[in-house]
């Protein structure tokens, strides 16, 4: 492991984003616009906004980092730059750590902006502090990045990578308990939900928002999430092959 290389990779990813201000603007502004939309969709049922709001604020970064990282890494795979990097004296973990750093920073900005809009302007109110929701959002962004990096190995084109979003992320969003409580789902779906990482992401958010603290169950959620990030990154590292057919 070399911090020098990880920082170089992170710096490079951020420089690439700097040359693409429209993507950065979309990443930062779109979640806030959607939260505003949600607030006024539920204009007649403010309690529903209070229920769903924290979940969405905390899950947006997961979804957008999944997309951004799957496409960035896919480009790296198809442009030959990954192959070149892997012929250089570096460890695969350096590349992953670099990506993690860059996307965590981006997610921090995203989560901060959407939190200010939701908590500051739209009157979202949670038992736990907005900072705790924001911290979970950044953790979720890392999970999204790790999953995006992993699925990029299975996409041959950017079209495919984009389609992995509805394929991988939407089912998790439906099953995680945000839209319908898991207790009301068919038994088989409850079992499926228990195996999906976003369930734990949502559950931890829900606990902070409703109970004000993670508690024992919420702490377990966070441990499971950390495990899922490590697992996805390890599997992702396996897909960064030096030697290919």
């Amino acid at each position, binding site marked *: 492991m070399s911090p020098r290389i990880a920082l170089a990779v992170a710096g490079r990813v951020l420089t690439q984003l700097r040359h693409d201000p429209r993507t950065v603007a979309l990443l930062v502004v779109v979640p806030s616009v959607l939260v505003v939309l949600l607030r006024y969709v539920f204009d007649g049922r403010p309690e529903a906004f209070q229920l769903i709001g924290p979940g969405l604020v905390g899950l947006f970064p997961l979804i957008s980092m999944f997309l951004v990282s799957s496409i960035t890494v896919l480009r790296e795979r198809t442009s030959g730059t990954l192959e070149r990097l892997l012929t250089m004296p*570096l460890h695969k973990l350096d590349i992953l750590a670099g990506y993690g750093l860059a996307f965590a920073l981006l997610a921090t900005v995203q989560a901060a902006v959407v939190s200010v809009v939701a908590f500051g302007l739209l009157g979202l109110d949670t038992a736990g502090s907005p900072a705790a929701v924001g911290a979970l959002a950044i953790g979720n962004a890392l999970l999204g990045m790790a999953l995006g990096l992993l699925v990029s190995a299975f996409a041959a084109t950017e079209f495919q990578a984009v389609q992995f979003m509805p394929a991988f992320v939407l089912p998790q969003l439906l099953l995680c308990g945000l839209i319908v409580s898991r207790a009301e789902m068919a038994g088989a779906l409850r079992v499926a939900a228990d195996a999906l990482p976003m369930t734990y992401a949502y559950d931890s958010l829900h606990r902070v928002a409703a109970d004000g603290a993670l508690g024992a169950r919420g702490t377990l959620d966070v441990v499971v999430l950390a495990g899922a990030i490590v697992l996805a990154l390890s599997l992702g590292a396996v897909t960064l092959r030096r030697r*290919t057919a």
Partner: protein
Amino acid sequence: MRKSLYDDFMTDDAITIEGLVVRRGGRDTVRVPALGIAAGRVTGLMGPSGCGKTTLMRALVGVQRIAAGRVEVLGRPAGSAALRAQVGYMTQAPSVYGDLTVRENLRFYAKVIGASPDRVDEVIDAVRVPARAGQLVRSLSGGERARVSLAAVLLGEPDVLILDEPTVGLDPLLRVELWRLFARLAERGATLLVSSHSLEEARHCDRLLLMRDGEILLSDTPRGLSARTGQDNLEDAFVSVVTEREEVLA
């Protein structure tokens, strides 16, 4: 270092291959029973598109899965961690970031390999690529992009350079300049293997490898090749080697 079967000169080989077989899509795409690539020389890997030049080069860098054989670079198995700082590989498609400027690309690669920041300007100068501030690599021409990719290989001053068609799509003047650069690098002790599908570039090489259908038909010096075939023109010499072989096979 051991001598290859083909080699009739008394220089050491920086790269040795024994019994190399690469299988792709169920058939052998590259078969090289034995080959040595001379240290401190510019070796041209000539052959038509699709004959296996890239696959062979990938095997030398250690990014190609091989079915059988041994490939050693500077006495170590190709692709081993210790070689990564010593071997520079330029892929055929320019492996640089289109959404970064020339300087940003090179600064990034310099940081990764731990080269001094001064090297960035040196290599930009060496490949004569326009490094206009703020201009993204994707807005450069194909030949310019290829030269940025080459510049990235030069950053670490590697002992062995594997360059996959570095001169393709360049105007004749730039082409000659790049071959002069390769000769200078070899004078300083570097080993270069440079592929080209254009036989007219053969005259710039110290050694020539002629590849066809995944096999090395010939390993010789330009002069040796002329003498062997009685042809002064290298293109004619290549043609006579290929025809001779096809007559043997027929």
